[in-house]
């Protein structure tokens, strides 16, 4: 019994991927966990030029969750390729590079850079969902048409497997997911954070100096599960589930709902050993329940009344 998953042309040691922005480039976490059974790690969201991110307070605790307004602080793609990619490649896990652009041209130029390192990059994750920057990203990610155009454009210039990370802040995630598929994505990742706000009543100010931020953590799990299921029902490409996963039971829920892999974000920030604990628990669970391969349970959700 192993937790290995095959998704598209790639195999993953386990379905557990470290979500973008919650583990930076893996250095800090590598002091807490071994990466050997981790399915993959997503880089912090990268942009063409270095970004300082948003000013002031960037985090607010909320019931069973948190808001962040980091705003894509990152050293820029060139610095990343020179200084961080080697480290990520050394982790013996799938390397997923998360990129975020102002406009299609940004995505193209970053993809071109990544093409030169395609031996070290397993997956290119197009972040069309960061709620903390003014241009690009979530604006593109809210429009099926723009998603289709962007994904098709990037698809046409790279052979690196392409994941599209979707925003939940839309009327129909099935529509945006379909657009990504039609554009040529190899998988969609659902979901990024929900746009939210927290207010300090003493100062009558938003706690986040960016005014709004992205809501993550268990609070959003029911929404994420619903969206993963919606995506998996309309798509023929795999879905990577994400949103509020804290333990192995949550992982099982996402797999059952239709996710072929899952990304763990906030949980790792709350307890750095979470990814490893989850993998241990999944191993125990599959053994105890005589599950030959975890992939057997992907998409096994039996909806009522259908």
């Amino acid at each position: 019994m192993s937790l290995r998953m095959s998704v598209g042309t790639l195999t993953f040691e386990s379905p557990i991927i470290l979500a973008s922005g919650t583990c930076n480039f893996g250095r800090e976490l590598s002091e807490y966990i071994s990466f050997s059974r981790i399915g993959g790690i997503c880089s912090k969201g990268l942009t063409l030029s270095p970004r300082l991110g948003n000013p002031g307070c960037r985090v607010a605790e909320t019931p069973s969750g948190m808001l962040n307004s980091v705003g894509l602080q990152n050293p820029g793609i060139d610095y990343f390729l020179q200084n961080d990619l080697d480290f990520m490649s050394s982790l013996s896990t799938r390397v997923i590079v998360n990129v975020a652009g102002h406009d299609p041209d940004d995505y193209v130029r970053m993809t071109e850079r990544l093409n030169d390192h395609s031996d070290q990059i397993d997956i290119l994750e197009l972040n069309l969902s960061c709620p903390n920057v003014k241009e690009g990203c979530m604006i593109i990610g809210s429009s099926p048409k723009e998603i289709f155009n962007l994904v098709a454009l990037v698809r046409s210039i790279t052979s690196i497997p392409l994941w599209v990370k979707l925003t939940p802040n839309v009327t129909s995630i099935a529509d945006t997911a379909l657009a990504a598929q039609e554009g040529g994505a190899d998988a969609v990742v659902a979901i990024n954070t929900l746009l939210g706000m927290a207010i300090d009543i003493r100062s009558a100010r938003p706690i986040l100096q960016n005014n709004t931020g992205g809501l993550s953590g268990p609070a959003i799990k029911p929404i994420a599960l619903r969206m993963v299921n919606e995506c998996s029902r309309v798509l023929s490409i795999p879905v990577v589930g994400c949103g509020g996963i804290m333990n192995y039971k949550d992982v099982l829920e996402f797999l059952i709902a239709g996710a072929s892999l899952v990304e763990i974000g906030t949980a790792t920030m709350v307890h750095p050993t979470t990814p490893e604990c989850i993998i241990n628990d999944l191993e125990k669970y599959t053994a105890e329940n005589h599950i030959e391969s975890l992939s057997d349970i992907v998409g096994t959700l039996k909806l009522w009344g259908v």
Partner: protein
Amino acid sequence: MKKEHRAELIDNKSMNSDSSLLVFRCPEIAEESRPGQFVNVSCSKFLKRPFGVNDTDSINGTFSIGVREVGEGSAEIRSLEPGALVDVLGPLGNYFPLENAKKLIMVGGGTGVYPLHFALKEARKANVQTIYICGFRCVSDSCLVDECEAFSDRFMITSDTGDVGIRGTVMDALYRLNENEYNDATVLSVGPEIMMKNVSQWAENIGLDCFVSLERRMACGIGMCLVCTCKIKTKNHDDLYENKRCCADGPIFNSREVVW
């Protein structure tokens, strides 16, 4: 591999009107902590709460933190009873550069005195001469007064109300120091940001290095999520800055680098 520890609370005593000193058993943290570092303590809330290490006792395998009650999380932690088991991550962050200090002037305000207490004890061990200045709003807010007086070579206390020590702020105490006293000293300051800013201006003006401990809202506490950034001047570029992580690149920064 580093890990998250389960620490047992073995003592909890009230120190003043709004803070208590909590002693936890956790040999690893007791062993590894250095002055200026902090620990991240779990409570029933979603995120952990950071507190500076106040002291360690490596023989008994304990460390302590001073917890001021400011909201629900700190109130819950402050009200823990001995025997309670809590998840603690730490020690985290960098620490005061004490090695080469010839003389130390420590300036603490409010709960800032807890982490400074640890630095003071270590300085004493290393036979470094110390001037210790602490400021409070009033006598009922003061804490660790006797300990710090005993451990320091010169001790001054100030209060806004004047009901203990010098009436005024820590600045009024600093102004009383003469050149002989502060020459060659390194300044350490922990407390409200405005106080640290004033202390570091004083220090920089007379050519002393000053190290301050910044506080930011945190999530991971170990440098992964980038929510806890401090504006730090880019090396050799006084008018450029970068966003450094309070939890991993700090919390201790040379005041000359800080963009206040």
